[in-house]
Each structure stands twice: as structure tokens, then as C-alpha cells.
């Protein structure tokens, strides 16, 4: 029914107040790709990722994600993507396992998946009973990743997922993203760690001053 394209942006403009953070972006992503968005600070990577997640209004152009038009049907997109932004989206007063069970209740994940995700991110044991506010920065990021994993989204959107993770965490993250791809999901992520990111990605897009072009 829908096109094969997972993301199809055509001359898209996204505006904050009166500043066009994305000024005519055109690109497509096919199913099963792992796309890296690279580009300087303030280029518009975060804005693009949030737009793909259905969180931002498209001012001009046409944008289609997972077969849904972002102009008219952002709600439908949102239920099928998973987003890890710059912020973690965790509740500081709840423990890791409470956060996990909150998010997984909402998306209907089961106990085994949750434990597996907590385990994969190295947060089992003492850490899982620690309030998020008392974790180190990297541990918090791991918790956010764990709650993304249990979503089993069709489209994964990650904003600088490697930042803050240690070497072992990065390896685990790469493994997770590859596994997600293998099970049919599509991944788009932004990163400034070009080497590592390029070896993970199947294709790179360069974002500069609100426009997108292939590298």
C-alpha cells in the first residue's frame, strides 16, 4: 500500500519562531538502511530527527514517514518510531527499573524483554534499584537506550547516541542497532564521531545550514 521509502522528505522547511532551521531538505531513506546524519553544530540534525519522529510541524514541502504524511497525520507516525534525543526522557526520582517498567507498560513490552534490555545496557543489580538522579551521565544514557530498545520501533531515531557511552557501551550500541536493522527496522542517527559512525552506517548524509546532501 505504501511506498517502499521509510522516509521521504521533499524540499522540507522547518521553522523555529522565524528562523528556518531546516531550509529545503530533500532526501529519502529506504527500509533496512542505517543512515548517519553528519554536519556542523547548528546544521539542523536534531531538528530533522525530531521532525521524522512527528514532533515538529512542517512549514513547507512534503514529508512522508513510514507511509504517513507528516503534514496531516503526525500522530500515526509517532506510534511507530522510537526516539532518543539529546535529553534522556527519564524521570529523575524513579529508579532505573521503575522507569523501564513505566515505559514498557505503555508500549506493552514484557518482563523478559525489559530485563534483557537492562542487562544489555549493563544496568542490572544495584544500579537498577538506583534513582536515575543518582546515576553517572553515561549510566543515564544507557537507561534511556534500554527504554528505547524495548519499544521495538520500526524506525529508530537517535541523536548522538554514542556521546557519553564508554567503549563497551558503544560496542553494545552498535550491536543493538545492527540487530535492529537485521530484524527489519530502519535506523537514522546523528553523530559527531565520524569514524565510528561511518563504520556503523550504511549511508551518510551531510547536513549543512538546513540542507541535506549525500556525502
Amino acid at each position, binding site marked *: 500500500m505504501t511506498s517502499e521509502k521509510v522516509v521521504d522528505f521533499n524540499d522540507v522547511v522547518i521553522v523555529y519562531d522565524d528562523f528556518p532551521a531546516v*531550509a529545503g531538505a530533500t532526501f529519502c531513506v529506504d527500509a533496512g538502511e542505517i543512515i548517519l546524519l553528519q554536519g556542523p553544530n547548528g546544521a539542523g540534525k536534531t531538528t530533522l530527527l525530531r521532525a521524522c519522529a512527528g514532533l515538529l*510541524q512542517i512549514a513547507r514541502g512534503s514529508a512522508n514517514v513510514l507511509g504517513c504524511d507528516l503534514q496531516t497525520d503526525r500522530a500515526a507516525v509517532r506510534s511507530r518510531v522510537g526516539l532518543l534525543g539529546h535529553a534522556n526522557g527519564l524521570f529523575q526520582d524513579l529508579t532505573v527499573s521503575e522507569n523501564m517498567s513505566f515505559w514498557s507498560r505503555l508500549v506493552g513490552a514484557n518482563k523478559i524483554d525489559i530485563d534483557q534490555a537492562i542487562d544489555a545496557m549493563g544496568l542490572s543489580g544495584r544500579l537498577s534499584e538506583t534513582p536515575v538522579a543518582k546515576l553517572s551521565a553515561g549510566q543515564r544514557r544507557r537507561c534511556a537506550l534500554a527504554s528505547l530498545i524495548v519499544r521495538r520501533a520500526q524506525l529508530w531515531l537517535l541523536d548522538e547516541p554514542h556521546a557519553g557511552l564508554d567503549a563497551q557501551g558503544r560496542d553494545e550500541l552498535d550491536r543493538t542497532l545492527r540487530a535492529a536493522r537485521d530484524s527489519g527496522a530502519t535506523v537514522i542517527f546523528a553523530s559527531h564521531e565520524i569514524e565510528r559512525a561511518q563504520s556503523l552506517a550504511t549511508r551518510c548524509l551531510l547536513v*549543512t*545550514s*538546513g540542507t541535506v546532501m549525500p556525502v
Partner: protein
Amino acid sequence: MSQSSRKVSNTGTQATRVIGVLAIVVMIWVVVSGLVLTPADVVQGESVRIMYVHVPSAWIAYVAFIVTAIASAFYIFAKRHSLGFDRVAGASAEVGVMFMAITLITGSLWGRLTWGEFWQWDPRLTTTAFLFVTYIGYLAVRGLDGSTQQRAKRSAVVALLAVLEIPLVHFSVVFWRSLHQGATILDPNGDVKMDGLMLFTLFSGVVGFTLVFIWLVLHRQRTMLLSDLAIERGLDNAILERQNESARN
């Protein structure tokens, strides 16, 4: 953005000019009749003449807020969320707030003459003040940043909830024992207790204010359209600028 190609230089049309002229004529009649032809009241004396402004402005404020609600409903429930409805809603609310302010001002002047105080903690007065504040809040919501569609959606929700306060204001004299005049004209029992010419002048006032209301709303929603277009054009430039920036890199 089909409108952007249309040449727009002013906000007047043939229709607004006719309405404008009619409004002037009717208002002149109201002034003459209200100040000269109608008799002074037995109880209230000359001060009763304030009524010809006070009551129509209150009613037209109601009308304006109801128009806002209806336009908002059209915006929300129509398939294509048309910004035209949103502009009418906003324009009507602005004019309504103005009329409500006139009601409050004339009411408190009148109150000074009859009760000896500008303000009383009376249910009708208090609920009117709340209604006024509610629509100030509505206008503030319209002023929040975000895209025009976001603005429209947010404000439509507020408008649909806010309009529910009007019955509260209208029936406040019934709910609570009030100092304020009970329903004299819109009396549920239908017996109007008022001199014929006074009544006619009052209704002329209503007609005149209605015309003024329509005239203002038509112009205001046109200026809103123009400013939306200006923003679009500013955006065009900003997009070009940003694209050039990217070309330089």
C-alpha cells in the same frame, strides 16, 4: 500559498464600505435618539441614557465570543483545517474584548451614578470581569510562539471552553441575588417593561453595534491575513539566506 500571488493593497471591499456607511447612519440615529428624543427615567433620571451603549455593547460582546467559538469549531472539525476560520475567530475575539471593555467602563460609570460606587462585588459584575479576563487569556494564547496551525489549534480549544462562561454571566443574576439589573428585556417571561421609543433606541443601538462589529471583524481578519502573508514572505527571505549560508560552506 495561492493568496500570496493576489495583489493586496488595502483591506476594504465594496461590502465593507456599505456596512461602514450603514453603521455610521444607525449610530447617528442612536446618538440623537438616545441623548435627545428619549425621555429620562423616572427612577434613574438622565443616567439611564448610558443604557443605550452599555446593553448593546454587552450583547455584541457575547455575539463576538459566540462567533469566535463557532469559527473555532469550524476550524477544528472541518476536514481541511482552514486558517480563514482561525483568523475570523481571532478577529472576533479582539473586537469582543473591546466591546466587553466598553461594557465594563460604561457599567462602572453607571454604577457610580446609581450605587455611588464604581465597583461592587456583585455576581454579574464579577462574572463579567472573569469573562473579560478569559478572553484576554485567549488572546495571550494566540500570541504564543509556534506555527500558525499550532496557534489555531490551541486557541480553538480555549475558545470552545471559554464560550461556556457566557451562560454563567447571563444567568448570574438568577443564580445569585444580585444588585445588578435583572433581565429587563431578555426576560424569560416575555413581558418587556420599557417605553416604546426607549426600546426602539436600544435595539437601534444593537443593530448599530452589530454593524460596527461586522465592519471591524472583516477588516481585522484581512489585516491578519496580510500579516500572515508578510510573515510568509519574510520566511522566504530567511530560507534563501540560510541556503546561501549552506552554499558558502
